[in-house]
């Protein structure tokens, strides 16, 4: 019994990574109907920026603010930088192609992804980078039969706080209503006096910032980052957002967590090598029976 509980907690940990990245996909998709293929690379870039701060500024930062302060500084720095990068990419790669429809934006997004990935490779080199060890004290916690690390708890707490905040903003505030309205019907929303550009700016700053924070958490969890990892995580996170119902923000969170748990259970009880196959089969089955995802609403969409 405790094995299954531990696997679920491990699943929730990586599921929260997927969920946080999936939010970036889903928000952008909701507002612009654009699959932002560069989003996975935002995540990688955030991870590398955090790595740089932690490796080169750690001594100074730790001296002034302590270990937690240094970590906080890395998270904030990566988040803010990626918010700016997100805005630049939106302005340079996406805005000029919006009027031409959805498909040119796919190529543009893939181009942006290649660009960012190779920019990271040029900047930090093609080799794996190792995240500094013991940023968070390596404390093991025993809860009954369940074995946890402090790192896992911090990651879960931080992810759930971030998701909760975003959920609150989107579901409870006026601006959140504007975002949901834009996702529902952009044209009508703008006729109702919603500033679409503000909404676009919001999703292109917050999405990459969340991705960057996730990047740092992934770096701390796996201790190893590479310039191509965004592709893999992006794929999983995109899958998660479709599983939950793309464009739907609670759906992206739920999809990510479900995906993570399924993956871990699949690895534990079926086969570690086939876990991704298992995940994709579940995705396909869900879409066959619920073509718009778990929380997606049925709309009469003409594609």
């Amino acid at each position: 019994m405790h094995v299954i509980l531990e696997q679920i907690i491990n699943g929730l940990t990586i599921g929260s990574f997927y969920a946080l990245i999936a939010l970036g996909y889903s928000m952008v998709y909701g507002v612009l109907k654009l699959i932002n293929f560069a989003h996975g690379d935002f995540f990688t870039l955030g991870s590398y920026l955090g790595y740089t701060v932690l490796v080169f500024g750690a001594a100074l930062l730790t001296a002034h603010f302590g270990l937690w302060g240094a970590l906080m500084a890395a998270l904030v720095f990566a988040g803010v930088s990626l918010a700016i990068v997100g805005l630049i990419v939106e302005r340079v790669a996406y805005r000029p192609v919006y009027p031409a429809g959805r498909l040119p934006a796919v190529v543009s997004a893939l181009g942006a992804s290649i660009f960012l990935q190779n920019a990271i490779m040029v900047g930090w080199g093609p080799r794996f980078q190792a995240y500094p060890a013991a940023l968070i004290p390596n404390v093991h916690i025993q809860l009954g039969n369940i074995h946890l690390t402090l790192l896992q708890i911090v990651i879960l707490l931080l992810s759930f706080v971030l998701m909760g905040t975003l959920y609150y903003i989107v579901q409870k505030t006026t601006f959140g209503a504007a975002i949901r309205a834009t996702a529902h019907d952009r044209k009508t929303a703008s006729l109702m006096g919603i500033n679409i550009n503000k909404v676009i700016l919001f999703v292109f700053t917050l999405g990459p910032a969340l991705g960057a924070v996730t990047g740092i958490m992934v770096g701390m969890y796996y201790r190893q980052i590479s310039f191509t990892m965004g592709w893999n995580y992006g794929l999983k996170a995109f899958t998660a957002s479709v599983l939950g119902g793309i464009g739907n923000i609670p759906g992206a969170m739920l999809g990510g967590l479900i995906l993570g748990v399924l993956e871990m259970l699949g690895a534990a009880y079926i086969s570690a090598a086939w876990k991704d196959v298992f995940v994709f089969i579940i995705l396909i089955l869900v879409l066959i029976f619920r073509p718009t995802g778990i929380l997606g609403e049925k709309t009469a969409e003409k594609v």
Partner: protein
Amino acid sequence: MERTPINGIGRLASSRQLHIALATAVFLIYPFLVSDYFIDIAFYFGIYTLLGLSLNIVLGEVGLFDLGHAGFYAIGAYTTAILNTKFGIPILVLLPLSALAAALFAYVVCSPVIHLQGDYLLIVTLGMGEIVRLALINNPFDLTGGPNGVFGIDFPSLGPWLVIDSSLEYYFLIWLIVGLTILGLTRLQDSRIGRAWNYIREDETAANANGIDSRSYKLLAFVLGAALAGVAGNVYASKLMCVSPESFSFWESCLMFCIVLIGGMGSIPGVIIGAAFISLFPEIFRPFAMYRMLIFGSAMMLMMMFRPGGVWPRKRGAVKYESLLEGTGRSDA
């Protein structure tokens, strides 16, 4: 009864024939002027053209988002690799068999999901492509050789007197296949099937209302596209003499997607241009070393900024007016 040719169209047709003749001449002469290295680049250009043409049926003609096309390509390549290395079946016999295997696979896996719309179809095809790749890595029944793949695939041969084993011969093999495919596809574009496909792409509801069985037409597109990708896989496997799962990653599917969109949806010359861009660009910019993919990415963005409809978009109203007048006794209205 003799049809009087309309001057303008007659001239246009002859200039088009001239262009095709010129292009053919360049393709025939080119390999004799350059080294094997450049012939090989032209070979891969041919493979990507074939892959682009195959995806163009699904994405360009019918407008179905398929981001798992590398899966069909992989099925073709692995069918060839396994049957050739295990049973010694000649490559050229396996060419139609690979096409058939990929087509059958497409039929089986696409049937239950063909009703999905837009991006949901995209993610499902993406998932299928990934399942194929992961399955190949996991080496089911000890057939696929795991991450290392399958080695020792033969050269295609027609008896002992014609063995395709040099870069030059491969070059002609792939471009012969591409040429025949283009011939077939241009005929298909103007046929009843091609028009039904385009109708579904433009407005599926209206197409259904006009009696087009969109489900079967969409499946047909997937099956045909997969068959062509299977052919590409066959030639690719025998050229490389080995296949491994990493050649059929999600990235390959993305490249095919870009080929179709860079060239222009549903446009055959567009596919050739798109394939040229994808396969030649990284070679031309090789001197820039690690910066070349940066340039490549920027070029993709720039192209979409300036030519969002593709470099050579398909012209609207491709069915020529005068062909509709055929047999009516009128030359022009």
